[in-house]
């Protein structure tokens, strides 16, 4: 396995998510071979990498959508390797998956309520729904529309709102800015900052390396299923390799 190039130093934090030597494969295709990363409480960690590097697979493994073939995943100290997704939600995990995973046969509102499936505090849920509508007014307009007929971007907004609805401790986002208008992208990153300040930790997969790394406390660069580089967001942004490979400079 190739050497991980670590730059800069990381401010010590109480670990929330620890991934060790993660191996994932789909049938014959080996997507991840030995990914190791960690995320501290209240941290924003960015995963960047070329197409097919394994970013999505990493998130899938963490949120229990795919069973890893090897390695350990720990959440707040507890081993959650290979646990079913629905058992992770109560532990405070929320995942906005690649391809958005909207329930196209349900209305916008129903999708949001499903985000809060395990919550019982109706009043609070109501508040949060309003909060999301506040973030994305379009959704309020379309609350009764079948989400199948939403535009790509609108669906993306819905996906993110839905993830927020569960009031997670750890938020996994797979390319949240995908297909969104520049304005909305900014909104989203503003929101991420907000929720992070509220103490939510975020594991962020993003193609827009610039935005991602400037938000993240720490970043990992994946290449063909392995961590190639790691370091504080800002410093990664400065590193020439990154600027060349991912910022196209």
């Amino acid at each position, binding site marked *: 396995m190739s050497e991980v190039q670590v730059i800069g130093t990381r401010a010590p934090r109480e670990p929330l998510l620890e991934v060790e030597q993660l191996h994932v494969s789909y049938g014959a295709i080996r997507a991840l071979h030995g990914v190791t990363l960690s995320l501290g409480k209240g941290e924003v960690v960015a995963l*960047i990498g070329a197409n097919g590097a394994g970013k*999505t697979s990493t998130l899938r493994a963490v949120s229990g959508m795919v069973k890893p073939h090897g390695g350990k995943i720990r959440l707040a100290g507890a081993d959650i390797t290979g646990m079913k997704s629905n058992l992770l939600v109560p532990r405070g995990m929320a995942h906005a998956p690649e391809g958005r995973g909207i329930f196209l046969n349900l209305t916008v509102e129903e999708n949001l309520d499903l985000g809060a499936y395990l919550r019982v505090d109706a009043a609070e849920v109501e508040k949060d729904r309003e909060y999301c509508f506040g973030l994305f007014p379009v959704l309020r307009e379309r609350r009764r529309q079948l989400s199948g007929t939403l535009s790509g971007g609108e669906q993306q907004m819905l996906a993110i709102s839905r993830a927020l609805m569960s009031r997670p401790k750890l938020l996994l986002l797979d390319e949240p800015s995908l297909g*969104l*208008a520049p304005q909305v992208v900014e909104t989203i990153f503003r929101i991420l900052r907000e929720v992070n300040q509220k103490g939510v930790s975020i594991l962020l997969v993003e193609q*827009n*390396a610039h935005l991602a790394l400037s938000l993240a406390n720490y970043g990992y660069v994946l290449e063909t299923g392995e961590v190639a580089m790691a370091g504080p967001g800002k410093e990664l942004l400065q590193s020439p390799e990154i600027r060349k490979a991912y910022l196209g400079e």
Partner: protein
Amino acid sequence: MTAAGTGEPLLQAKDASIEFGGLKALQRFNLEIRQGDLKGLIGPNGAGKTTAFNVLTGVYRPTSGDILVCGQRVNGKKPYRINRLGLARTFQNIRLFKALTALDNVRVALLSESRPLFSADWLARMRREGGAMATVAAGLDAWNNYYDWWRALLLAPGFLREEEELTRRAEQLLEVMGLSHRRDEEARNLPYGEQRRLEIARALGTRPRVLLLDEPAAGMNTREKADLMVLIRRLKEQFSLGILVIEHDMKLVMGICEQITVLDHGETIAVGTPEKVRADRKVIEAYLGDSYLETHPEAGQEAAR
């Protein structure tokens, strides 16, 4: 094929509008694409861009207005007919043939290539004539197809050579899109970005004269986007196409498009060169957002004037 007069418009939308139960998704939409054009279509989410594509390619029938491909009115024509007139597209929510290999995905698109009873170009020309000619062309097309079935069943020598020829062309297209290494992988197993490129390869397979790209750069990192810009320009030349791009990445749109149309709530709020559009107040409010001015001061000055 290439020789087609650069001058005359290959794709025209004239006041095309469509509603979905009250919702005016697209209103009086106008557009013209000629060979060699590279135009952009932008606008906030839900503005009606993809809907515009759907109307142009015949997925939806415009509730009013006309769509003309190569001068021929195609309202309510079936998508495959419109495609055969020379209009190809990619999809925002990727729609590859998931279980087929990358190669086969492209080969599907190549079916119009089979060397038939009546020459394809010939028919294509007839179709563009429109009217009775088009009907005749459709009829002959059917005969071509039956004839072709038998060649396939009897393994006519010509057919075999052709199959190999098709495969070669498909491989070339994969090559062009830099997907040769995925030749025999099932489409569903490709990572997101490569799936997008495969869609483009597939679209090119149909020998289009106009290519519609719906957010081709989505899911690509800045570097890959840069490559894509180069690629799109190259495709335009190499296949002598007219191209219309939907994209939210301003760097890309502003970078490659000569002309940009901006939609908002289905209405066209601005048309013009990148500079002009970028400086347009309405556009900034509806779409780019003020911060865009901060990051791109030059636009700010223009807007100021």
